[in-house]
């Protein structure tokens, strides 16, 4: 085993070994489950294929990750289709301007829910920020069938500006959306004239844009933990958020039709092709970085599940995958077309045209490999052969497609996610100081190695703004209230903790409880270090407060977990995109009509080869 001296902030902390194998860090219970599913021999193979967190958990690597069948939107849509969730509009009342109320009922797996929608259009485009006075659309998602009194109550509460109203535990939370004014009015005008909108003119791909889901207790809404862990349609984390995103698409489509109908007795309705094409917009900002750091078990769970799925795929042989080749080729061709049509992105991210070119090369290489490679050559061999000729984004897109090729693996692995994400962190008080020091050296070497003597390495800090508490990023030597810094920086506390353990000469046999009582401000980082000892992918291995750090890299990663195909950065800390273009309609889901809606064709290019 390779050893090398480590220097951190000028301290000689002794020799450390190379990282312990990943398999040794995984919980025994997880390994048992994997062996039950795949057999001991196979598990041994795929564990050897797990990628090093030092390699893939950097912001640059994370930024290249792509959505796959494990992404929350995809697992939700699959469930909705298989279980034939039944969404129906109960009521929609709107005036010619677009002010009104709608109610939707959902029956899913024996459970009943109601979505209560209020719309109010004041003529101004809204960015969809928490600090906005209101939103064009607000909706409350309640358990059970809401009667008229509950509908009225929620509509009134949502009408209070700047989230000033309150709900109670019958509501899971409130969600907001805003018009894309140009697109929205364009579609209404077309329908009013009795025609279908020209999809080539609808460049954004959506008419309304999601502005967030405020659940889990906000404004008095239900606690997420009140949802049972099993046998409930929304027991999987983020499925409720994704469902509401899906509903915003439907609501937007229903309202453009309804407003057009109010304006003209001969207004058209959207045809099926148009309804399927239009998606829902989304913007995401700094808060996503904070969430990923704040809840490392989410990050660790999702990444580990994906890495195991990828390892499963990469250990499959060429000869065993013959029947899936065509599917992979089809996906790659679709991806080439998809990325070729997308503009940008800027901000030092890989341009989409480059990804398209790389994927063409992958296709050409696959074409040859499928006929010439040895029978026992694996997908892992194929990917390894591309690593010098293809960029990271294209490789991760290929990885996502490989994961998708084996639903028999991903279905099993997806079942690990809900339970693992619900794990809560507790400090282990009787761990010894000696064991804690070893953990830090084993798992946080990357943090100890960061040189914090350079001011640029600790340039920024996150904070809650006086503008409705929105998360912002400030500069340490410019902006005030550093004492209220939002926790984002793992490196600083890890370094401080390690330094205190060494400088204060704690005995190896002393308990962690004594240390944290003496240093209560380090209790959080100690419990985090302990908690993540079995989560090799739980930390973003980067300096998130460095001057050079771009939040968009981590934001794009988080969006890929949700199911975004591609987000376009609008600044270093803000990413926009569109979701659900081509996705099934509620009727498709109700009637069990699945659709392959990944990477839809841009209407400008329909009919082109």
């Amino acid at each position, binding site marked *: 085993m390779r050893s090398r001296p480590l220097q951190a902030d000028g301290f000689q902390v002794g020799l450390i070994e190379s990282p312990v194998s990943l398999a040794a860090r995984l919980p025994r219970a997880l390994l048992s489950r994997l062996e039950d599913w795949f057999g001991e021999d196979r598990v041994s193979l795929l564990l050897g294929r797990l990628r090093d967190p030092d390699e893939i958990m950097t912001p640059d690597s994370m930024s290249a990750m792509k959505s796959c069948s494990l992404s929350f939107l995809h697992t939700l849509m699959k469930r909705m289709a298989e279980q034939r969730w039944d969404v129906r509009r109960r009521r929609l009342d709107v005036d010619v301007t677009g002010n009104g109320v709608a109610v939707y009922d959902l029956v899913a797996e024996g459970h009943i829910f109601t979505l209560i929608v209020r719309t109010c259009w004041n003529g101004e485009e809204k960015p969809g920020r928490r600090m906005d006075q209101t939103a064009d659309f607000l909706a409350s998602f309640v358990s059970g069938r809401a009667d008229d009194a509950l509908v009225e109550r929620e509509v009134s509460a949502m009408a209070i500006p700047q989230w000033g109203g309150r709900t109670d*535990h019958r509501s899971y939370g409130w969600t907001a959306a805003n018009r894309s004014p140009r697109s929205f009015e364009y579609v209404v005008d077309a329908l009013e004239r009795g025609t279908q909108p020209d999809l080539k003119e609808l460049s954004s791909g959506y008419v309304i844009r999601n502005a967030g889901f405020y659940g*889990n207790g906000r404004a*008095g809404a239900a606690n997420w933990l009140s949802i049972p862990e099993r046998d409930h349609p929304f027991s999987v984390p983020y499925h409720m958020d994704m469902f509401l995103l899906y509903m915003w698409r439907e609501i937007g489509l229903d309202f453009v039709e309804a407003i057009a109908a109010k304006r003209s007795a001969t207004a058209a309705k959207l045809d099926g092709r148009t309804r399927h094409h239009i998606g829902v917009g989304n913007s995401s900002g700094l808060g996503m970085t904070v969430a990923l750091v704040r809840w490392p078990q989410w990050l660790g769970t999702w990444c580990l599940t994906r890495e195991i799925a990828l390892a499963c795929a990469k250990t499959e042989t060429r000869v065993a995958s013959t029947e899936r080749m065509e599917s992979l080729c089809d996906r790659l061709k679709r991806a080439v077309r998809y990325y070729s049509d997308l503009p940008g992105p800027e901000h030092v991210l890989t341009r989409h045209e480059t990804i398209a070119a790389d994927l063409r090369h992958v296709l050409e290489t696959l074409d040859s490999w499928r006929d010439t490679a040895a029978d026992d050559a694996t997908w892992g061999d194929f990917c390894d052969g591309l690593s010098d000729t293809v960029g990271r984004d294209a490789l991760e897109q290929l990885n996502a497609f490989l994961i998708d090729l084996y639903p028999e693996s991903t279905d099993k692995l997806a079942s690990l996610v809900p339970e693992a994400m619900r794990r809560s962190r507790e400090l282990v008080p009787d761990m010894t100081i000696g064991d804690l020091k070893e953990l830090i050296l084993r798992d946080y070497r990357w943090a100890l190695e960061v040189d914090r003597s350079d001011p640029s390495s600790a340039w920024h800090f996150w904070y809650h*703004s006086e503008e409705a508490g*929105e998360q912002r990023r400030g500069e340490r030597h410019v902006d005030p209230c550093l004492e209220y810094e939002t926790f984002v920086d793992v490196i600083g506390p890890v370094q401080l903790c390690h330094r205190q353990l060494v400088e204060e000469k704690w005995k190896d046999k002393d308990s*962690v*409880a004594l240390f944290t*009582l003496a240093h209560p401000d380090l209790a959080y980082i100690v419990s985090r270090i302990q908690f993540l000892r079995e989560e090799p992918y739980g930390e973003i291995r980067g300096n998130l407060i460095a001057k050079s750090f771009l939040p968009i890299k981590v934001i794009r990663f988080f969006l890929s977990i949700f199911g975004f195909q591609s987000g376009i950065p609008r600044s270093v800390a803000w990413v926009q995109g569109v979701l659900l273009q081509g996705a099934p309609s509620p009727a498709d889901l109700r009637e069990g009509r699945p659709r392959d809606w990944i990477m839809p064709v841009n209407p400008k290019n329909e009919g082109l080869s």
Partner: protein
Amino acid sequence: MSATATVKVSYAELERLGIHALRGLGYSFSVAERAVRALAATEAATGLALRYISSASDQLAATSKTVATVETLAPGVTRVDARNKALLEMSPFLLDLLTAEARQLGSAALLVEKCRGMPFIADFSLRARRLGLTIVALYEQAETRALAPFAAAGAVYVTDGAIAGGALSDSGEAWAQAATLLRANGVEAAITEQGRSTGRLLLLAQAPSGGATKMNLLTLRDQIALDPNGPSWQCAQSWPAALDGAIRGQIVSDQSAFDFFNQCVRRIWAPTSERSRAQQG
């Protein structure tokens, strides 16, 4: 007497915003992050947490940066000087220390002095249920009459994952009975000494593997007389169900205390520079 205005609050809401509110009172993120569960759980169990924070905010702020000190009186017996810090923040640390020592030595005792905020004993005991320890906790509060209806003293027992306890009939007698368990350690006097500080807890824990004192903790529990007319918040048997109900449903809290809580949240909202705002897009 006019009814106090109330508001329906979510448990998750208290946990999320509580970190910010406690930071607004001066606590570090690390301390706030641990204390927020004490806040939410105690509010769910007793309805007193938000009112306590509202009434004792100056005291909480004044001690938010101080650090408790620890003195070993005998093997497995530790004195903690909480330096007037509240059990709100001390609860998780005390339970950590008690657990570590009990697991290491088989049994442990903590004598905590100059500690405030005894209603947060609810959180202490709710957390303790999952640890597999047998625990007896006695407490005497230091708060003034202005914080009524907090009763003067009480006891909580955690055995086999269940909680029991209530207000004490005779606090002095109860403490003396408990002190006899530690006679062999030579610390009985430290527990029963005259002029002892108010705001005290005596925490006794026994691990499943522990030795001779095991039966004695259960015997102690049976010996100590509880006051049948004690205030309802101190009925420990009701705390687990109240907590479960709060997580599944909601908590009814004092409106003015909740308003104060939200004021504390807003204390951490900082002015924003143009450069900072521009990054939002």
